[in-house]
């Protein structure tokens, strides 16, 4: 009976509120290191990204696992209708040639999962600055288009020590800290190997200590991240959703 009062075609179809997620990923040469137990070491040695390593035959590299992780992140996000419409993913990498946008913010529909390759150094500061620039640009576009958005997430993953421009690194740390302290950014600092610089990672994140990824288990982390996007995008506005930092302990144990 109320259909005469209000019909579907009379209503505005406002866009879904977005969940911006920026992945800032280390693709320095050391990400090619083969995960122990998966390949066969030869006697040949080489220095890659500041580390002396044996050359291996076969095996699965850190990068391979990270690639699989990102793919499962996209899969998890795409599998939920609400998260599918809400998620906006950006991938910035740092390695050979400096910081690089592998995939700029857009709906997951219009994105293909970027294929990453690893080489070179660890210019982390430059990459975080670039990631934050992308985020600012996207937020500006949201505002202009009248699209609501949630507090953005920045995932920062490294297996090494930043060795880019020192000034850029300090600037990136200050920018990130200021946003996080003002509750305008949620930062997930991740150390993916024992060699990762935990001290620098923790400087990026005033509210949460860096987490260590155990056993190169990228897949579990990214699935958890995807589930968190699902939860946030399905939450009722104003509701305090179970954000990653609320249930992070369940994941931190991995």
């Amino acid at each position, binding site marked *: *009976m*109320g*259909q*005469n*009062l*209000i*019909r*579907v075609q*009379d*209503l*505005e*179809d*406002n*866009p879904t*509120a*977005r969940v911006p997620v920026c992945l800032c990923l280390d693709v320095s040469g050391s990400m090619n290191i083969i995960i122990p137990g998966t390949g066969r070491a030869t006697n040949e040695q080489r220095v890659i990204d500041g580390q002396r390593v044996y050359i291996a035959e076969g095996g699965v590299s850190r990068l391979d696992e990270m690639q699989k992780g990102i793919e499962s992140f996209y899969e998890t996000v795409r599998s939920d209708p*609400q998260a599918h419409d809400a998620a906006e993913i950006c991938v910035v990498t740092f390695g050979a040639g400096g910081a690089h946008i592998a995939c700029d913010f857009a709906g997951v529909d219009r994105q293909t999962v970027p294929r990453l390759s690893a080489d070179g150094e660890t210019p982390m500061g430059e990459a975080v600055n670039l990631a934050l620039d992308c985020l600012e640009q996207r937020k500006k576009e949201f505002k202009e*288009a*009248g*699209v*609501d*958005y*949630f*507090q953005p997430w920045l995932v920062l993953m490294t297996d090494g020590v930043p060795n880019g421009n020192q000034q850029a690194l300090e600037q990136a740390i200050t920018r990130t800290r200021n946003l996080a302290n003002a509750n*305008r950014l949620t930062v997930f600092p991740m150390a993916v190997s024992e060699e990762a610089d935990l001290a620098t990672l923790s400087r990026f994140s005033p509210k949460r200590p860096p987490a260590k990824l155990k056993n190169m288990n990228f897949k579990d982390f990214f699935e958890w991240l995807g589930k968190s996007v699902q939860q946030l995008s*399905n*939450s*009722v*506005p*104003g*509701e*305090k*959703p179970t954000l990653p930092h609320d249930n992070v302990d369940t994941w931190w144990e991995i």
Partner: protein
Amino acid sequence: MWKTTGCAVIGRGHEKEGLPCQDQVAFAAGGGIAAAVLADGAGSAKMAEEGAICAAKIAANYLVAHFHEILADDDATAVKEQLLATLKHALQERAEELDCALRDLASTLLAVAADDEQLLIVHLGDGVIGYLKEGELRVVSAPDNGEFANVTTFVTSPDALVKLRIYRGGVENVEGIVLMSDGTEQSFYQKQQRRLMPRLVHVMREAALVDNRVFVPQLVDAMTTVVTARTQDDCSIALLVRAIDEENPLAGKDDAARMEAFGIVADAPCARRRLRLCDEIYGYLAKPRTERAICRRFHIRFGAKKKLARLLAKGYIVKNGDIYQRACAARE
């Protein structure tokens, strides 16, 4: 002269989780003043629905009781402080009864009160307030979201005084005011252009015309089936509209509104003449008449069935056998 109506319906999110509806509406009237209030309980508050009920009721009664006093006071800050103090006092008492903290009763607040001359509008938090004046629908107060989608200000927030908006004005040519929670806003407020959807004009005019016993179930049905489909959130709407003269519901309306009621296209040829004829037929049907009598009275050569059918379909007149009569007159 003002009529208030509205409803709050549970959203898909809360229904799934078995939680109560956290949107609430409340109304009050007295001394020629009517008030409509809407409160959206904060999702993060433990007893949000209780807080919303309490805030809406207290605000409605307070605005009616202190209407003239508030409008006469030029110190807007003092007015806001008094209103918030009254709300917080009542919420504090409720919190003690419920054995919870004040913040567990957090809600937004959207309110309107009016008498024959003036109106008063209050807005804190998200949701949107619109008004219909001279046939035009405009936004009075846009949603006050923080930067992020799930953040806004509540009655219990520390910055409530700063964020509370208060408006006053004359009622001349104002047909009605509409209050919407953020759930309803998703369907009726175009965020990019910051404008309201035109269908609200129809909703407001129906609200003015149709008795609440009929209108409210229609509104609840429309909100439940159509509006809640656009969001996970609870949806509510509250209206304060100029009540229509029971004897002649169309008498006080302007040409555009009457043309819409009679189904006349405004820019069609002879629209004015058709409107005048419809007005006259409608007036003539204060008493029961046959079609023949109508045709004779208005020199209609080829029958008046089409015109009468339109008025019948809109519910302005009723037909009983061969006899036509104005709907409100027939009810008595």
